[in-house]
């Protein structure tokens, strides 16, 4: 690696958003260097754990069924964010997402027809064959073949910014201090979710109980560095995308398979053996992303999904086996919960269940009456042993605090002026569009769309 060279574009980060930017810039003739913090086997940031991209399409494509138009996509986004979004940026992203699968295919990514275990998303989301790591592999192969310089084990520690102009980057290259000179820079280095100290600022000790689902390299170093140098902040720092994870999952990098889909077919209690939310409010693809946050708000950030043998086949199997018991009392004992209270909670719930026809795949008429909180669908009496439980913890995917960008992916300064040569894509700017909540596959849509724009704009700016 030649550290005296002045590169047209430095891309900070090594996930989908970073590589989409790098490849687009290189296609426009720019010289591009990618600084990826992770070593090669762990490259790709959170993209390594992803599976699909949500894409607008007016008609069926080779990988998407039926159609998914702008208004429906926008409605879906509006519902999950509760209106906390930027309509112009969001609609631009939605419209551009139509071309995301095609662009990725050009970069060697292979899509598959969706089969099982995909939360029935085949209409709205295009699935990567083999998942996110296969996508990451394909993008790196393409990038290398195009002559993009890839630096692994390279953490960007500081980008020197003067009056909205980024001058150079101080990096740790395989442990050695170096500087990278460039004309433009694209920040695609993710959120700060793996930085527990930072999370503690907003969540206190609870942060120690958060499982970080994705890459441990998302330390938010560049994000913090930029926000400290006059870059405009966007997004609520306490907001993140989080799911119900298995409490026995590793604290970092457990990936997708740690999530549990059992909630709609269970009752969920916290450590005080209180139910705290309607488990059957809506179909799981529309609700899975709120449960991480719900659990994060419980005592000791723990919860337990409790159900019986009827439910075992209604959700995808878990990596860690459920905890089984012959009686509710015995189950409470194994979970360390108050047995009398758990028996009472289950009895109260069972008494409130109204007869209905169970359908695990749609909003059915199995619900409770006179129970607070209610269980609106899939409510069946918990009575057929063996009973079983899954212990739950919040699994954080990524944080929403980010750098403000305009619709050309250009980083905005606190004084409202656009930066002369800084661009951003991916989770580091997703908070511009996601104020709260999450839509499956939307992170990859934002990453691909803004990655392409950032790469194009950076290459153009480098030329001038």
């Amino acid at each position, binding site marked *: 690696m030649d550290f005296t060279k002045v590169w047209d574009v430095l891309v900070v980060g090594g996930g989908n958003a970073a590589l989409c930017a790098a490849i687009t810039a290189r296609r426009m003739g720019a010289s591009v260097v990618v600084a990826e913090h992770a070593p090669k*086997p762990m490259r790709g940031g959170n993209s390594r754990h992803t599976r699909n991209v949500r894409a607008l399409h007016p008609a069926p494509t080779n990988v998407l069924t039926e159609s998914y138009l702008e208004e429906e996509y926008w409605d879906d986004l509006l519902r999950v964010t509760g209106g906390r979004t930027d309509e112009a940026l969001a609609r631009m992203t939605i419209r551009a997402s139509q071309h995301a699968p095609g662009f990725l295919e050009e970069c060697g990514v292979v899509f598959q027809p969706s*089969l099982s275990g995909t939360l029935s998303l085949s209409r709205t989301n295009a699935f990567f064959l*083999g998942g996110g790591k296969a996508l990451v592999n394909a993008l790196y192969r393409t990038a290398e073949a195009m002559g993009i310089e890839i630096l692994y084990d390279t953490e960007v520690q500081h980008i020197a910014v003067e009056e909205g102009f980024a001058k150079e980057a101080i990096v740790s290259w395989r442990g050695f201090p170096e500087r990278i000179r460039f004309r433009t820079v694209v920040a695609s280095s993710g959120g700060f979710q793996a930085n527990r100290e930072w999370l503690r600022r907003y969540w206190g000790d609870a942060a120690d109980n958060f499982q970080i689902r994705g890459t441990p390299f998302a330390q938010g170093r560049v994000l913090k560095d930029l926000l400290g140098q006059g870059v405009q902040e966007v997004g609520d720092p306490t907001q993140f995308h989080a799911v119900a994870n298995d409490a026995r999952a590793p604290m970092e990098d457990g990936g997708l398979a740690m999530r549990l889909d059992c909630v709609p077919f269970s009752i969920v209690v916290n450590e005080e053996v209180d139910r705290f939310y309607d488990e059957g409010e809506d179909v799981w693809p529309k609700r899975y992303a709120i449960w991480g946050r719900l659990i994060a708000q419980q005592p000791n950030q723990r919860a337990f999904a409790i159900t019986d043998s009827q439910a075992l086949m209604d959700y995808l199997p878990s990596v860690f086996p459920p905890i089984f018991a012959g009686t509710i009392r015995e189950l409470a004992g194994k979970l360390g919960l108050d047995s009398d209270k758990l028996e009472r909670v289950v009895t109260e719930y069972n008494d409130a269940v109204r007869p209905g026809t169970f359908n695990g795949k749609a909003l059915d008429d199995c619900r409770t009456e006179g129970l607070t909180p209610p269980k609106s669908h899939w409510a069946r009496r918990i009575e057929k042993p063996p009973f079983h439980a899954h212990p739950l913890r919040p699994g954080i995917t990524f944080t929403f605090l980010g750098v403000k960008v305009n619709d050309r992916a250009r980083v905005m300064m606190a004084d409202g002026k656009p930066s002369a040569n800084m661009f951003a894509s991916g989770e580091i700017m997703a908070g511009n569009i996601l104020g709260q909540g999450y839509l499956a596959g939307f992170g990859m849509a934002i990453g691909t769309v803004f990655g392409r724009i950032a790469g194009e704009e950076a290459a153009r700016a480098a030329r001038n």
Partner: protein
Amino acid sequence: MSQATDGINLTAYAAGADSDAPPRVDSTTVAEARRQMEICNACRYCEGYCAVFPAMAMRRAFSEGDLTHLANLCHNCKGCFHSCQYAPPHPFGVNIPATFATIRQESYAEYAVPRAMGRLFERNGTVVAGVSALALTLVLVLVVALQDPAVLWSAQTGTGAFFRVIPYPVMVNLASLTFGWAIVAMILSSWRYWRGTAPRSRLPLSGPAVAEATMDVVLLRNLGGGGHGCNDLDDGFSHTRRWLHQAMAGGFMLCFAATCVGTVYHHMLGWYSPHSFWSLPVQLGTWGGVLLCIGSAGLLYIKAVTDPAPVARRLLGGEVAMLALLFLIGATGLLLLVVRHTGAMGFTLALHLGLVLAFFLVLPYSKMMHAPFRALALLRNAMEKRR
């Protein structure tokens, strides 16, 4: 997911999950395969690669028989390894290709006939190489003992030239005995494998299932990685291994056909070897030998340069020895064609037939068992899909 409920004993599942339950008695590899499959079954990102993952998704718990079936269904395309978010250095250490290769090998040993011969899989490279050396020696010694040693270096021409080196009855009897036994042992092993990996509920055998399994074998669909090929060397995709394997298998079949045609010529038509270059047996044998050499040499090359991470290193000896043996059989056969009118014919023929004898001897105790077991796994999978 109604099919998943079928045949699962919830209480047994519960007992398996309970820490108080007695430890499982399966081999370490089986326990490891089960651990990995339980991760895969919660992830399912690889469902588009091959038949293994949809077959896995039909199950909730994995018996030893299930794991053996899935392992034999696996064609070792390595797509699932290179795309795995849990592959080493991730602490989950998921490595399905290497784990399943080991399970396959254990199943060849477990179902070997006679049972005691299963031990030959422990150091299979040594066994294949050793038997080859012994068989070569035996043939040379027999030639010297039964015939005039001069046949090994003097030119033999005209009808019956080959049999002046190795007498016809010796050749035919040795071949029929060893090859006959190999076929019997392989059929018995396959039967034991089929019974040993049978699911709890009976599956109906149907014409379409047989047709699908046959096409899977002929096209090697499961080395297609869902259409764009498999990970021959690294995370890039290609169809090279698929083509090389079929060249080798096709070449092998052509050589076998050449032998059959030659036998028919000899016994039924009274046409004795050596046959002319343009005759059917020589044409079949020549092209078969060429394909066999290209296929086996190509596969050896891929084995040598491929990313070693998803490879079960302990099994490499047996695999390499078998590929080398097939290559040498093809190469000596072609050499024989070239030198058959010269003084080198006798020695080359002895070499060639010695290697063929070795191949027959080790056949049921070698990597070659993958052929019937995988074909049966494909058949069972086709039947399971139609349940």
